[in-house]
């Protein structure tokens, strides 16, 4: 009955949570420092961020990539809002562990801790934004490449469950600005989020 429908409906939110969290990475926008530790230290100083995004989905199913547009807002330590404008209006808000989804006049809330497979992924993003390298490395193998002028973080899941769907997350940045977040899935599909600062 209604309760059941409610449970079934949660599935959609779960997926939404996954992609939202990938966006979180996009908001640590300053990357000064000489090495990974310095980058983390700089990121931890970030209190607020607001950018617009373009997300492209390269899927085997599609002859050409599907695109979405919107805005991202981040407030330290753990509040994130992703407002998608096109192709479907939708607002996802992550506050602490609770994800709220507003879509088509409907509101759903979801506790991300309900999904253990997501937890390492979420925590790693948080750890990145908070500049918490130990937590990040507990969950991912972290590879820092390039220079501070043009750098790349490659996160590979340690958890076998997470590794089943996500091969790696690549975050690119130029000096103190995040430019792209790319999620590469195990089936070869990938999504590429390109960020542009308002200022």
């Amino acid at each position, binding site marked *: *009955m209604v309760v059941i429908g409610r*449970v079934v409906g949660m599935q959609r939110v779960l997926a939404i949570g996954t992609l939202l969290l990938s966006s979180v990475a996009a908001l640590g926008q300053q990357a000064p420092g000489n090495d990974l530790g310095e980058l983390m230290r700089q990121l931890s100083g970030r209190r607020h961020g607001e950018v617009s995004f373009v997300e492209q989905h390269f899927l085997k199913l599609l002859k050409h990539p599907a695109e979405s547009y919107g805005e991202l807002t981040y407030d330290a330590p753990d509040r994130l809002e992703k407002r998608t404008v096109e192709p479907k209006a939708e607002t996802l808000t992550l506050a602490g562990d609770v994800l709220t989804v507003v879509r088509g006049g409907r509101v759903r809330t979801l506790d991300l801790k309900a999904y253990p497979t997501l937890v390492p992924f979420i925590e790693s993003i948080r750890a990145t934004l908070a500049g918490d390298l130990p937590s990040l490395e507990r969950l991912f193998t972290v590879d820092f490449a390039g220079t501070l002028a043009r750098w790349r973080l490659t996160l590979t899941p340690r958890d076998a469950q997470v590794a089943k*769907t996500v091969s790696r997350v690549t975050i690119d940045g130029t000096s103190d600005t995040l430019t792209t977040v790319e999620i590469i899935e195990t089936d070869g599909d990938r999504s590429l989020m390109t960020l542009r600062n308002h200022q």
Partner: protein
Amino acid sequence: MRARRAAVIAAWLCSLAVAAAVALHARYITDLSAFLPAHPTAQQRILVEQLRDGPASRLLLVGIEGGSRLGRAAVSNEMERRLRADAEFSSVSNGQEASADRDREFLFAHRYLLSDATDAQHFSAAGLETAMRETVADLASPEGLIIKSLVPHDPTGETLHIIDRLSRMPAPQLRDGVWVSGDGNRALLVAQTAASGSDTDAQEHAIGAARAAFAAAVHEVGASAQPLELLLSGPGVFAVASRAGIVHAAVRLSIASSVLIVLILLSVYRSVPALLLGLLPVVTGALVGIAAVALFFGAVHGITLGFGVTLIGESVDYSIYFFIQSARGEAVAAHGAADEGPWQRRLWPTMRLGMLTSVCGFASLLPSGFPGLAQLGAYSISGLVAAAAVTRFVLPELLPPRFAIRDLTPLGARVAAWIAPAGRARGRAPWVLALALAGVALAVLVLARGTLWNRELSRLSPASPAQERIDAELRADLGAPDSLDLVVVSGASLEEVLRGAERAALALAPLVDANVIGGIDSPSYYLPSLATQTARRDSLPPPDTLRGNLDRATAGGLGLDSRELTPFLGDIEAARHAPLLAPRDLAGTSLSAALDALLMHAGERWSALLPLRAPHGSASDIDLAPLRAALAAAGGESASVYVLDLKHESDALYAEYLHRAMRLSLAGLAAIVVLLWIALRSLKRAALVLAPLVLAVLTVAALLALCGVELTIMHLVGMLLIVAVGSNYALFFDRRSERGGGPLTLASLLIANLCTVIGFGLLSFSGVPVLEALGTTVAPGAFLALLYAALLTRHA
């Protein structure tokens, strides 16, 4: 003489044994069903069945408090696992993800039969393109990850469409994988029992199983620093708790009032044999009363049992009159006053008239159509008749040869001396006072008439306020559907009601979009009618047509690669030849429980229930007028489709009963007037006997109104009891003033009144609302009846 004594005693013992045997084997119930109509109309029957056996009646709400957040979540999951394995529960949910897997598989496997989007247009080139354009948009949205794997099989998004329709309601919050309350301090579960809500024994068993599962889960999860606490609520919990509560209160109060009455009688009689003999009518009356109810009604309501206490109050009076006044007879005989006949001739006629008066009053409850009240009536009548008969026929036979109790003449004389000045000094003053009092009481009642009577059925709920509070909290936490508004579709077959449900849901869809209704649930969402399923299956195109349509749909700028959609072609072809869904196909999914809850089958009659939810963002009730209009406009064969507002209907039902009970009580009063008129051979005397009783009832009603108590049907019963008990007092005073009776009458009435006031007074502290209503009415009423009778009858 000796043979007669043996015969009388043997007959009494036999009846006692039979009554005890029947009472021991009787079934005891406590749910609200005793306060539902015995002969409902078709519409009332749905209402009654909903309240007794409907999905709402089988709901068990579970809260887990204390301990740590993770501890509560772990216990919630472990409890869910255990209850799911228990056949006593038809469904269990705690928000856990895994439990929905089977449901999703079922919805996916049968998506083309279940989706209301399935028609020929949907699978034309244009229809496919429209649907798949949505899907491509979804792929680009954050939902892409999950639907991606579905798209090759389901490019038109039917599975998500079905899920969306089923999940259109606010969900409780999830924390640590389980549902929690708004503040996060309570983990939540919802279970539905397999047994109906009115089966109190099964409910008690299910509650025991839930407690055991909780204890085992706590053990399994391991001890935590702070102990975890289990909260249970729901109609079954109420019924079980109130049964326990009523039985407990009845036993406790019976013992308490028995002890008090025994102490009083011991101090009065100063004779153990007199005391023991005096209790015989009480015990006999109580047993015969229960046996009579069990025989006539099949089951005894707990509240009737609670009434046993009240019967003690009245039937003990009989033996008090017998002992005190027959002792007087002995004494008078010893002094050689030959004009006094035996007890039976002097006193019995008055007692008998008092008893008949009571019987007239209670008889008015019998045709109330309200099984609970009819039970009270039957219990009281049979109990009083039995108690009076034992007093009249058995007690004299059991009286020891040298029977003697303390002479109470001095006590009576003192009382007589105390009330005497009132008459001598003030003449007709008591009557003036009485009229003034009646006027004031009437004025109070008229002023309070708007709020005088409580018209809500739930007021009769035997649940305590603490239980009601927990229930309200858990329901608010869960957003549990109150199922107070329903669309009911009735018909002669499952297929007919499913078709009706589909038409009704379709007619109401615009109102859901306009947020006049927050949402609607229908059995046809889980199991469409065969006609609909056939139409949907027939609309699926054959492979060549579908391939052509698909190629054309993807030829434009859609972006979907038709080569990736081969599984879709295969699935449609399989669906074209799949058998239609029958109820058994849902087995193993929680959709099955949902379907069962929304279908009712009794005899040749099927009913589909479509619960409505209140509009979003509004605490107000659903405006039912546009609903009725929409259903009527949909060409509704209005006889088989109607809107049922359960709360309104049940309150209307109760109001009807209240009115009926009031009319019947007035009829009972009229019968009492006629009886007294005939027995006393004077309308004036009858009126004089009744005056103190009416005044007592008015005073008590006015006092209750002044205290802000809203009167229920149980208060009305209490008023009837005031008349029943008080009539004895008034009749004895009448007889006394006629024959110049002595102080012994006063003494016996005073003792009897004391016992009655104690018996009913204790009910006021029972903690069971209906019994409290009775106690707070009768205890002061009985005392006032005696007082008014003493003051008024003497000075008439």
